[in-house]
């Protein structure tokens, strides 16, 4: 068990080292001569307008909410799918009832226009 994680750990450390090395090396090697145009958000192209901190639509939040609910649902699906054959019919019925309840909720959201982008 642990040896599997050692591989992952080494891979993780290697990836970190690689990314860090690239950043540090370029910082050491690059010439550092800033001037006003270079410090703008977009060096070429449009100038930025207005504050960057603006209020977003509430629709984003609604999508995130529905995503969260179905994310939780997906988590319950995992053990059911993995052990599908051992669990048998009762689990199948239980899972379908669970899914139907959640899908009804989803249809309600759809009907009430929570997914509309106005």
């Amino acid at each position, binding site marked *: 068990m642990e040896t599997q994680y050692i591989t992952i750990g080494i891979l993780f450390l290697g990836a970190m080292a690689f990314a860090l090395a690239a950043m540090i090396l370029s910082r050491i090697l690059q010439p550092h001569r800033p001037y006003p145009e270079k410090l703008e958000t977009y060096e070429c192209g449009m100038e930025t307008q207005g504050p960057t901190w603006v209020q977003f639509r509430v629709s984003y939040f609604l999508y995130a909410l529905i995503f969260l609910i179905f994310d939780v649902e997906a988590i319950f699906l995992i053990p059911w799918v993995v052990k599908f054959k051992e669990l048998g019919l*009762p689990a199948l019925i239980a899972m379908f009832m669970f899914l139907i309840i959640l899908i009804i909720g989803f249809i*309600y959201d759809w*009907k009430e226009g929570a997914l509309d982008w106005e």
Partner: protein
Amino acid sequence: METLTLQDLQFFLPEVILITFAFVVLFISNKNKSSLLPFHLAMGALLGALIFTITQLGSEAILNFGTVEINTFSLLLKIVFIIFSIITVWGSKDFAISISFGKEYYGLILFATVGLTMLGSAGDLITLFIAFELTSISTYALPLIDRSNERGREAALKYFLNGAFATGLVLFGLSLVYGLTGTVLLKEIVPIIAEIGYEPMIVVALAFLVAGFGYKMAIVPFHLWAPDVYEGSPTPVTSFLAGVTKKGAFVVSLKILLATLIVIKIQVSILLGTLAILTMTVGNVVALMQKNTKRMLAYSSIAHAGNILVGLAIITELSVAGSILHIIAHGLMTIGIFFGILYVSKIRGGYDLGDFIGLRWVAPWTAFGLLIILLSLAGVPPFIGFWGKMVIVVSAFELGNWYMFLALALVLNSALSLVYYARVIRVMYMDNKGVEFNMATKQNTVIETREITAATKEIGKLRTSSYNIALYVCVLLITVTGLFPEQLVAISREAARFIIPW
């Protein structure tokens, strides 16, 4: 102790009916706002669930590895909670038409009722917790249901944040209990804790549980959210929150605390007793100072939470029966009185004590209903509010010793509460000024005579409003159960026997 069979499913029929109808209600078209279809469906679902629960009376079963228990306690609470919801839904008929989320209102109440009915029958910590969360989450959105009510926003936020925090505390406490015992079944927790004996961790677990449930039950010092939420929410919602869902918290704490406190019974008893005395006194003293009746009743319901807690603190079969009885009594009284003052605010324009002046002449039946509920709240016989306190006091006298002090505190507080209840009664009945509500200007004008004038007659049209119906139903139940309490006391005692695990 085995898996669910098809035959066992009959015990879930009330919940299945409620869930199915809740979804059906949610799918009614939005076009016709004044349609009574959601109301009829919700009432039908609740009545159907009530009938099926009543047919189960007397049966006893342990289902699905002990995670669900059907016994007198669970059936009694199911019936009680369904009846509470029926009265609330019935009373809210006129309210739900006036708001834009009418069907959501009924849907959420039905879902909350599902959670409440499962509370009684849950036999393990997980089912109990999820049922309790279902109740809480269904009600978090309710204070916001009326968009025209600006204060609902603040109330909803306070209710949600406090509720979520309390849930966290409860969950931490429950996980500690599970860690100590290694089981989630309430029936197995008791012998295992008794075998382990005293561990400091059980104190920490109980501290978390008492604090978490303390928030939900609004006992002092965890009560600060309650007055703001109860005042800010639309009144039918307040009646549901204070009268129905808050009682769910008492049921859960009865079950969980009784199962876990076995090795430190005396210490827990002292802790709960102190909290109870504090809750009753603070609730009553602050209620004395309130001019707004809705706020006054919020504090009065805090004081009553203290009364119920006294029964929990004594921890005998009789005292728990008293708590159950007082839970039922206070639920009925709270629902009734909030609908009563909602009616008064509709004809008078506000909830202040001044709006109750001369109510006797304007709306004699509403005034009479409020009179009975106020007397019952103060614990005057022969109403049901008296019997709950009575049973708790008797159970304290049976044990004697310092429990006598608890009983004394309960009696003194009842006397204290009579002061502010009587103030409302005096304003309604004794104040010699006749007051007329002008429908056009929405103002009260003081008039000299006691004659009913044309404007007052116009109010008479409102008299059959659903708010009054809920008030009358509650008054009827309070009086009938108060006059013939033997049956209810006996059932409560039998129910208490099922949740006291030793």
